[in-house]
């Protein structure tokens, strides 16, 4: 039995790297600094260690040969999930390039709200250390932040000391839309977050008014979607008075049509604030299930984020048409590869197509895939790299135990070689 300290987590997206973990054989226990997201993700038990072909346990070599045979004559295989580490994504993209496959990260439909805004007008963003040391006003839009990342407030807002704030507990926290479900946003001295609640689908209207107020445009209405315009005016005034405000949102939580326009409106509002003699930045929340990792590695390898295809022999990007679920529903795809090294509960979409699953041990299927290869989890079973939500920082993941499970990269590289 050993204890490992300063363990980084690939699960929460906010780069917690202070976990203490006790390893006993292959069983793992989070001893210190766990949370509702990280603890169950680390402690998930290994069940199956052997690959299966058509439900029969086989050797890794046999499974790889079967996977390659299944992919060999396909015309448009789809590689979905894409939840793995940097080396896993490198191998995934090499395989996709060879097989002429679609590459589609499972969180892309949410992330698309950000990418469409980025690719149309851009943004001004910041990272977690700047939030920790500078942020004097945080606006949380449409998201229950503590459910998304339970330790966000503890690590990045209620830190005892900050380089540029005399009293971190004096920070202003404002929720717009979704109200918080817990009390993590209440400061250690008892200062509570200010909540301006509205329905999620009303956010576009509310944010349009907020931006107009930031730009000092006249608004004649007294309320918008249940929020007093005077309250929004007060928020606009806070932005102008703040030295370093930050606006955060989870693109996936903006679950309505054309939510990219909401991200764009927020991002343009941030630019407007920066033109009014103060600073403000955006902070998109992400980093779950390897989504930032998939987009980063796909970005440098192909030029595009992780919803693209190689079927023409070169990379092509379409953030709508390359959606796994759409391709399966339309009958365009002829095979599915599901890669999910982080979460055994994240099963492949239902399909009658031949399916290869390369996933964390313990995945339970309603329909047994043709090929199932259990792999190690980056940051538990092997070293690796994962990107945090803020996109700049790649964390170095540790190997905590010897499970004998191969890495995603080993399996996908072997399948590519077998092709």
């Amino acid at each position, binding site marked *: 039995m050993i204890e490992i300290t300063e363990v*980084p987590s690939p699960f929460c997206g906010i*780069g917690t*790297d202070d976990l203490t973990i006790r390893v006993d054989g292959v069983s793992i226990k989070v001893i210190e600094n766990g949370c509702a997201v990280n603890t169950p993700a680390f402690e998930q038990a290994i069940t199956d260690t052997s690959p299966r072909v058509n439900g029969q346990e086989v050797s890794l070599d046999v499974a790889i040969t079967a996977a390659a045979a299944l992919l060999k004559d396909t015309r448009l295989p789809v590689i979905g999930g894409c939840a793995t580490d940097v080396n896993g994504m*490198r191998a995934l993209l*090499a395989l996709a*390039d*060879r097989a002429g496959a679609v590459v589609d990260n499972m969180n892309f439909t949410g992330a698309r709200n950000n*990418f469409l805004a*980025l*690719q*149309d*007008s*851009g*943004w*001004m*963003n*910041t*990272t*977690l*250390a*700047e939030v*920790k*040391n*500078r942020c004097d006003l945080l606006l949380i839009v449409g998201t229950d932040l503590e459910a998304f990342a339970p330790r966000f407030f503890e*690590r*990045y807002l209620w830190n*005892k*000391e900050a*380089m540029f704030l005399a009293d971190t507990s004096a920070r202003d926290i404002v929720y717009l839309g979704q109200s918080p479900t817990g009390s993590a946003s209440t400061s250690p001295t008892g200062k509570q977050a200010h909540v301006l609640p509205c329905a999620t689908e009303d956010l576009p209207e509310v944010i349009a008014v907020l931006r107009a107020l930031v730009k000092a445009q006249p608004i004649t209405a007294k309320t918008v979607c249940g929020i007093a315009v005077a309250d929004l005016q007060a928020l606009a005034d806070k932005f102008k008075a703040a*030295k*370093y405000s930050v606006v955060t949102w989870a693109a996936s939580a903006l679950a309505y049509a054309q939510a990219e326009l909401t991200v764009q409106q927020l991002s343009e509002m941030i630019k407007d604030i*920066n033109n009014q*003699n*103060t*600073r403000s*930045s955006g902070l998109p929340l992400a980093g779950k299930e390897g989504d930032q990792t998939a*987009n*980063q*590695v796909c*970005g*440098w*390898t*192909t*030029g*595009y984020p992780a919803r693209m295809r190689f079927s*023409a*022999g*070169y*990379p*092509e*990007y379409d953030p709508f048409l390359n959606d796994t679920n759409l391709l399966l529903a339309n009958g365009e795809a002829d095979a599915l590869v599901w890669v999910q090294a982080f979460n055994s509960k994240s099963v492949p979409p239902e399909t009658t197509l031949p399916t290869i699953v390369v996933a964390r041990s313990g995945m339970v299927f309603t329909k047994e895939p043709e090929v199932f290869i259990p792999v190690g989890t980056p940051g538990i079973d092997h*070293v690796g*790299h994962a990107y945090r939500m803020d*996109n*700049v*920082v*790649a*964390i*170095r993941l540790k190997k905590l135990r010897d499970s004998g499970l191969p890495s995603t*990269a080993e399996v996908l590289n072997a399948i590519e070689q077998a092709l």
Partner: protein
Amino acid sequence: MLIRLTGGTVYDPASGIDGQQQDIYIENGRIIDKPQGEFKVDQDYDLQGKVVMSGAIDMHTHIGGGKGNIARMLLPEDHRQDPVPRSDITRSGCGHAMPSTFVTGYRYAEMGYTAGFEPALLPINARQAHMEMGDIPILDKGGYVMLGSDDYLLRLLTAKKDQKAINDYVAWTMHTAKAIGVKVVNPGGINAFKFNQRKLDLDEQNAHYGVTPREILQVLATAVKELGVPHPLHVHGCNLGVPGNVQTTLDTIQGIGGLPMHLTHIQFHSYGTEGDFKFSSGAAQIAEAINSNKNITVDVGQILFGQTVTASGDNMRQHANHKFASPNKWVVMDIECDAGCGVVPFKYKDQNFVNALQWAIGLETFLLVNDPWRIFLTTDHPNGAPFTSYPHLIRLLMDRSFRNDMLSTIHPEAQKMTTLASIDREYTLQEIAIMTRAGAAKLIGLTDRGGLSAGNFADITIYTDNADRQKMFEKPDYVFKDGQLVVVNGKVVSTKWGTTHVVKPDFDPSVEKGLKDYFDRYLTMKLGNFKISDDEIIEDGRGSITVHPLSS
């Protein structure tokens, strides 16, 4: 296996060889002397009438790191115009302004380049830079770690820590980030932007720290020299792109007091305020200062007309430049109490007065600086133009009539504001070889690259002599990387992985005490998790690390 390159005309400035016919022998990846006695040549290349140089080295090119990947994500429409299909030996990808990693390696090699150095390795983003460069085939690579706007350094300065403390921190950072040089971008300005300062002159104080860019340059240039890092402090100065910044640049040169200093993309820092448009060339003054200050080296950052994207650590200046974004979309980031970045697409137009004069200013600088060992051929890829435009740039430097033909087509007012037409100089092949090979290797401190004498790695490029220098340099006959034939007739025929060049200056291990405390209190990562291990570069079996000696 013994390879002989027979009868080529060799330009090897590192050995003082200027266009002499010589045979070159290659064994086990290195150039060797002609074997004694009887020997058997396994492969013989007849290079009669061909030009032989070592592989070219780009000493300043943005090929790895977060801002480049943001630039990629920002411009899908640019990639769509230049798709690159896979082949039996090469991966697919995309090209133009900010190519994919694999295409970056192929296209550099296809122009005869065998190494490229990323000039802006943010300590917190160095992992990504190395991972991206790890996916660039064929090329050797390395990076200059960026300091000067990081809060830790500014705190050291405010606390009046001595030069030794600075040196230890700089050396420690070079180790953890796996760097071969140290870069400073808008010294202290990236930090000042976070405090809402929108400009920072050489002697202007950071609003929070009270530190000036001049002090930052002084301590960092001193640290680099005292640590024995061969590459001088790599400086992206204050006031990039601002009319009148020629004076800032001249003051920067004077202010460094004779310490070695490399001023990068000097073209963007050579602007006066004369004329009807209050924008003029300061190239003559800058060139004069370079010529008379032997401690100064520069690369040009030439602009060439067309669409590109600018990706810089200088969030302060990039935020100001967003007004010129074309297409109109841009990204600015503040990063981890460490640095920042700004990504702004640009379309340089020959009929735009400012762009046309920028083009002329870069060329004036090339032609007015006398010593080719102290000036380097760059476009600050992709900021002035994509690296694929180098052959065109070489022709502009080597062919006066071509240059003047081009000059006669640019904005007429810009033509009146440049002395370019009166400059007769044409670069020689030897001078091109100095700028792009021997000089670059010497500047970076690469001990066995950039030359063709025995003992050097066999990075060799062979061209067919052609009066049209653009045609000549865009399609080498052969390129060897570490003795392996990787390009024939301008096309990749095989691939391999290059090494990562670093230096490892000494530091007092007690430097980590202060750093650990700082990381625990203010940053978001444990110190132990911040440090990049050698394993991270070599564990996938493709990368390797080459440590170069320090200067004595």
